[in-house]
């Protein structure tokens, strides 16, 4: 399978990258590890005539002291025992992404911005053309929820929920300079499977920052998929918290793999802080998260099953995080 021609740009600094991005506005894609973008390009999904490779932008690399460069490869995190010690929920999530070979090239930034997925979208040009193209690429209607306005493609990155549970911020560089925003604000909660992130044209993800307060939080990421490798999440539940004996000192929960963007459930977890988490309250939390999320039929497992699993996975993730905190 070959790629259609494009121009390849290799800036070496963030400034240069942003300038380049400005001049190519709307006509380029960033290329990080390429493990998401290149399969999509091979399937002729939303091709652009320019690729800006971030490979040589040194500032985007590295991790430490709560900072994770956008171009840091997942394998670097996977191999670092400090991640498991300091951010167990992130270590879980990293280890569950794709396969070791994909993690060897795939990056943090690429994972946060991984293209949303759908059985009708992640198909070859031939396949899509034979059915009739859909909204998300080359077409004007949706095959999952038949209408012409909204795309229901699923956000399928594993790191985002974990980093949300750690209250992470993203550092973005753009024509207007650097800025920081909470990770959940990177995603467009009012958007859909197509309009999914709040990044101005040409804005670049530089790094993710995890606040010091999140270091050492007990956590767990639980991922539903058919096989223990390769498969994208059909559901990903991330939990991070602190327990003071039985009492919840802090608790955050985020879920991915279900809707077009990952979601954080502070409104449900904050009221739980300060008291013990009884089995009933935990079950009520899990049921409410399940109630609020709506999987559609665009992945391998059936949506009613995925929905039901939200309840089980939330309960288990919190429970395992709590037990981890006791040990």
């Amino acid at each position, binding site marked *: 399978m070959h790629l259609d021609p494009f121009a390849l740009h290799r800036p070496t600094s963030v400034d240069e990258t942003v300038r380049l991005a400005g001049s190519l506005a709307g006509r380029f894609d960033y290329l990080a590890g390429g493990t998401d973008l290149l399969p999509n390009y091979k399937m002729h999904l939303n091709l652009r005539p320019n690729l800006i490779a971030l490979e040589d932008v040194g500032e985007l690399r590295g991790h430490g002291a709560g900072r994770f460069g956008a171009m840091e490869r997942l394998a670097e995190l996977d191999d670092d025992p400090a991640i498991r010690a300091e951010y167990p929920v992130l270590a879980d999530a990293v280890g569950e992404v794709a396969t070791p070979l994909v993690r060897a090239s795939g990056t943090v930034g690429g994972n946060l911005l991984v293209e949303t997925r759908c059985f009708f979208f992640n198909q*070859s040009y031939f396949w899509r*053309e*034979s*059915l009739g193209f859909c909204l998300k690429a080359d077409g004007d209607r949706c095959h999952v929820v038949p209408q012409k306005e909204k795309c229901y493609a699923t956000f399928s990155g594993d790191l985002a929920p974990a980093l949300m549970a750690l209250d992470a911020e993203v550092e973005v560089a753009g024509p207007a300079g650097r800025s920081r925003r909470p990770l959940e604000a990177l995603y467009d909660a009012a958007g859909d499977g197509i309009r999914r992130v709040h990044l101005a044209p040409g804005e670049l993800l530089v790094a993710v920052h995890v606040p010091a307060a999140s270091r050492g939080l007990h956590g767990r990421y639980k991922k539903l998929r058919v*096989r223990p490798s390769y498969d994208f999440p059909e559901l990903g539940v991330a939990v991070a918290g602190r327990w003071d004996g039985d009492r919840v000192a802090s608790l955050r929960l985020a879920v991915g793999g279900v809707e077009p963007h990952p979601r954080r459930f502070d409104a449900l977890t904050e009221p739980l802080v300060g008291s013990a988490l009884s089995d009933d309250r935990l079950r009520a939390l899990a049921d409410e998260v399940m109630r609020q999320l709506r999987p559609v039929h665009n992945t391998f497992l059936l949506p*009613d099953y995925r929905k039901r*699993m939200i309840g089980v996975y939330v309960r288990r993730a919190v429970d395992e995080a709590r037990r981890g905190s006791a040990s």
Partner: protein
Amino acid sequence: MNATAPPPSARLLGGRIPYVEGPLKVTGRAEYTDDIQRPGMLVGRVLRAPWPHARLVALDVSRARALPGVYAVLTGEKYPTPFGVLPITHDETAIAVGKSRYIGDIIAAVAAQDERTAEAALALIRAEVEPLPEYSDPRMGVQPVAEPIHARGLNGSNIQKEVLQHFGDVDAAFAGAAHTARVRGTFAGVTHAFTEPLVTIAESTPDGRLTVWSATQVPHYLHRALAEVLGIPMHRIRVVKPEVGGGFGGKSDPLPHEIVCAALAIETGRPVKVLFDREDVFYTNHGRHPTQNDVKIALDRDGNIVAYDIEALIDGGAWSSFGTVTTYYNGVLSMGPYRVPNFRYKGRRVYTTKPPSGAMRAHGGTNLRYSIELALDILAEETGVDPFDLRLRNALPPNSVTVNQFRITSTSFRECLEAVRAKSGWAEKFRRLPYGRGIGLGCGFYISGSNSPIHFTPKMPQSTVHLKVDMDGGIAVHSMQADIGQGSNTLLAAIVAEVVGVDLERVHVQRVDSDVSPIDLGSYSSRVTFMMGNAAKAAAESLLVPLLEAAAQLLGTTPDRVAVGHERYYRRDAPEQGVTFLEALHGAMETRGALTASGNYRSPSMGGSFKGARAGTAPAYSFAAYVAELAVDVETGEYKVEKIWAAFDCGRALNRLAVEGQIQGSIHMGLGQVMGESMNYRGARLFNPSLLEYKIPMPQQMPDVEILLVGKDDPEGPFGAKEAGEGPLIATLPAVGNALYDAIGVRFTELPITPDRVLRGLDLRAKEGRPWKGH
């Protein structure tokens, strides 16, 4: 025998023989078809139909043809001769003629200077079509239909093949039965998913010859089909089989792209390569048929099986492929491993507008077996008998004849059952493990080489092996058997080395090349060890004759008094007196010149004389009894098969390393079909033509496998061997199905058993108010 020369049988065969081509494979030096470069080679590409079923009114290829860099554009009319693997069901064409029959059917092909040009050319082809009705389900085609997929469908329906068989009196047996059980199974299609994609290179040369290199497991069928469709005699076509990256049945039909590639090479006068994408491979399919079956079993008061009443509705996809055989196998492969005195079968294979199904490892055996073994478990439970005892009571005895006249010679099925029962700790575990944990038994039975060779006129031996010895004692082996990873080259070399008494490294198995390889039917129906093995043994024995004569002369004795040692021939009566292999060889060459030898195998005549009597007849059969132990997460429906005890009767295991590998690989593939693999169709459309969404199990999902090889020597197999390449898959499925029942009290009759289905099963059980192990 004496100390310096151990008995030949102790040297190689029966041991663990690493693959002879292993060093080439681990260094990347083994040559597969796509590794071959020919000068000036063009890229061949096919255009696929985007419609499930359509009449091709007009195809305009003029713009494609005019594109610079395009050397040829082909449509169906140029080579309309139908072909197919079975001589009686030729219904495929290289490129669709008149109409296309599934999403992915080939409707045109191009040869161009490179991939981009080829694809650009395909995009310029304009098709005018008239849509025809989609028949995505076999049930839609059992009655006469408006627009039959093929004219040859039965009475205007889409039925490709119907089999009706009745032996004994099934109705009477059921009427008098003490217990009956019925299982209605539904099985998704699965596919081979070999790692090497389909690929062919063809080159037509000015001497009027055509050479075709292809990833095929049956070079001979390809050779025939090329000759028929292209109208070139076989002797002007040379088929070469380089290393093949897995087949499992998926490279045994002659496939359209192979013929397309050759046609493009002829059109252009240049070498052409057609390399398929993974998606193309999924559309080519020929995998295991989506099937619905209905199995009824009757027992008498004593627990003897008195009858089977079986129906199967088989989704054939767009072409016949091996379908006639499939239709028979889905019934007659029930004839072992138990005695069945009355048997009725109605099988129908129906064309659908989907990618064709065909032969896949344990062809016709898995789905039928799953339902039978579940039904037996139900009967054991109902009658309060242990599942092992029920099966032991009904085991086919050795040297018996089945009701449909299969000849059973060796069987160690009883030994298989006894071995797994003891090893698995069955008595302590069955129905005694805690809720969510389970153990289950499943058995298997498979042919060791189809007795009826496809395509053989004049009737000749199914396998021939040629040997040629050089003056330094290197032995070149020629055979058209097709090693696709199962280790047949190694076995061929080892048999020759064993018989002739030489080091394995002297024996060089030659690449399959129809110019020099004597005919063999290739790798399917688990025939290679048995048939090629016997032919190799015969060839080596015939080579030994002049060697022993020469040795006898040098030793001053007669050939019958000379024994074969290791690289040495010696006097039986005076073992210290011997000559080396090379001395004997040179002695023989002085009188005869360079040595050659030939050996062959022909299976004995067998089977009844009724219609279809030959289907399923084989010179031997393999037997299996597996126990699986697993744990189910009853909240999520996920489960892990933790251990499989696999007792298998392949007669004598000639290469234990290879046999173990076949069993482990079969279990992996069988688990795939149980746990998650499926050709995921919505209507006629395949939703998962990728290795990401086609769920082959990962290393972490493999159970610990304990292999118990308990087979006794088969009287006709080479050195007592039978097959081990396909049979080992079959028992995996019911062992897991029955273990799931033991764990959670749910009988799963729809495969694959994905976690959502497990939960649905648990829900249903709860609704019925049927507790299991206190839950």
